[in-house]
Each structure stands twice: as structure tokens, then as C-alpha cells.
């Protein structure tokens, strides 16, 4: 195990604040999955997602002195990633279907449940408004509770809960519409109902 791998995140943060580029690179490695995945699911384009994730870490490098703790670092990265993704979605036209398919193919590790259902869920997620999409991602990808999501997105807790309820209802409805013959979207099995 190399030295930097043994360091706690707090130590890495302190060293990065002091200007240690190796410590900063180690912090990038520790948080790249979360930042890149959020960007990928928000933008649905792997090249744009990688570009945005790199921009987030460049911004972190410039602002690292304002990061107060490890928990604040994770919070800061999520907030900046989602805000930058929403800004980019407002500025730039939606990506092509080819890019979406490519993003899907490269999005995740080998699947453990129905791959068709997973792809469909990710596709339906892209149809949600950016703010609602961000709420769902923070809830089910980052596993944050509504209070944490509210802090990250500067929304009220009630708005977060409302986004979650409406988004789940929309997803359920759309999956039901597409599977009228009784196929269970949740498990990938066919039922006799």
C-alpha cells in the first residue's frame, strides 16, 4: 500500500490545501466515481460527463481552501456537480439518441438484475426535469436522505419530498404503460395478474 492510500481523507485534504498535488490526485481518485456518475446520469453523455467531472475537480482545486472537512468535501462536490450539470443542460441542446445508447452501454458495471429494466429506468430518468432528476439521483445513487438533498440543492425538504413522490409516480406510470401484458418491471419476471 502506498503512503497516500494509507492516509485518511482528512490528512489528504490538509495536504491538498497546503498545495500537495499528489494528495489532491488521491482525493480525485476517492471521489471520481460519485462525481462522474452524477454527471453521467444528469447529462447522459459520457464525454460531456467526463468533461464536467474534470471541471468540478478543477474548481475544487481552486477553492480547496474553503473546504472545511471530509463531509463538507463530499457535500461540496455533489452540489457543484449537480449545479454545473443543470447549467449545462440549460445552455446546451439535448444529446442524441446514439450518445444516450453509448452512455448506457458504458454507464455501469455488469448488471445483476434485468438489464432491460435498468436501461429503461435510466432512459425514463432522463425524461424528468433536471431538478427532479437531481433529486432522484441524490436519493438513489448517492443514498442521501431528503434533508441532505435539500441542503445540497438549496431546496426545502418538502420540495424534495414532492419531487421524489412525483418522480416515482411518473416512473411507475410510464413503466406500467409500456408493459400492459403484466410483466413485472421490478423483478423482470412475468406475473399472471
Amino acid at each position, binding site marked *: 500500500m502506498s503512503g497516500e492510500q494509507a492516509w485518511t481523507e482528512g490528512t489528504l485534504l490538509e495536504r491538498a490545501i497546503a498545495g500537495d498535488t499528489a494528495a489532491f490526485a488521491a482525493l480525485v481518485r476517492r471521489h*471520481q466515481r460519485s462525481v462522474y456518475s452524477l454527471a453521467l446520469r444528469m447529462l447522459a453523455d459520457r464525454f460531456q460527463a467526463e468533461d464536467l467531472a474534470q471541471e468540478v475537480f478543477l474548481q475544487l482545486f481552486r477553492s480547496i481552501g474553503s473546504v472545511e472537512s471530509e463531509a463538507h468535501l463530499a457535500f461540496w462536490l455533489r452540489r457543484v456537480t449537480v449545479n454545473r450539470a443543470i447549467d449545462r443542460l440549460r445552455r446546451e441542446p439535448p444529446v442524441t439518441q446514439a450518445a444516450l445508447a453509448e452512455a448506457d452501454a458504458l454507464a455501469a458495471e455488469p448488471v445483476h438484475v434485468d438489464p432491460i429494466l435498468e436501461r429503461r429506468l435510466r432512459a425514463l430518468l432522463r425524461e424528468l426535469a433536471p431538478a427532479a432528476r437531481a433529486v432522484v439521483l441524490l436519493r438513489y445513487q448517492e*443514498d442521501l436522505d431528503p434533508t441532505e438533498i435539500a441542503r445540497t440543492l438549496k431546496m426545502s425538504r418538502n420540495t424534495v419530498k414532492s419531487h421524489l413522490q412525483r418522480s416515482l409516480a411518473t416512473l411507475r406510470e410510464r413503466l406500467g404503460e409500456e408493459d400492459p401484458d403484466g410483466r413485472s418491471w421490478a423483478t423482470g419476471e412475468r406475473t399472471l395478474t
Partner: protein
Amino acid sequence: MSDERTNHDLEQSLRAALRPADPGADFPAGVLARLAAEPARTLRPARSLATASWLTFALAASVVLGLFIAHERQVRRTEQGLEARRQLIQALRVTGEKLELASRAVNTTEHSTDSLHSGA
């Protein structure tokens, strides 16, 4: 399937569909390459909070010290002005007394001369 079960299954499916993806092993190198390509002035990490706090404290202390020095100067100037005024009043008083004495002496001398002339 109940609504509760449906919700639970949907949430589980979402968690599975949204499991984190990895950008690749060369991602940090890409970030560092972009950092290196940036102008030198932006390469320095921002000052730490502690440094920023010290700078703020030092700035505030300088302002307070500056105000104190300006106040002290003003007080000294006022005291000097008052002292000068006191000295001027003293000088005028002394001058007035001397003039009074001189005036009396002149009057006394004139009176004596007149008496002599009239006596003669």
C-alpha cells in the same frame, strides 16, 4: 402486488440502475493535465480558511491601530492648540500689565511736571 411492494421494488430497481460508474483509471491524470495547462496564477490552491482568517484579523487590527493613531494625533493637536492659546492669553495679560504700569508712570511724571510749573 401491493403499492408498498411496488414502491419498494421500484426503489430497489432504481438503486441497481443508478449504481456508480467509474470514469476510468486515467481520469485523475486528465484532471492533473488540465490543471497543468491552466495559467500559473490559477494553479495555486486558494488560501486556507485559517490563512484567510489571519489576513482578516490583521486587516482589522491595522484599521483599528490606524484609527487609534489618528485619534491620538487629533488629541495632541488639540492639547497643543489649547496650550498655545493659554500662552497667548498669558502673554497678552503680562503685556497689558506692563502697559498699565508704563501708562501710570507716564501719568505720574506728567502730573509732577505740571505741579512744578504751576508752583513756579
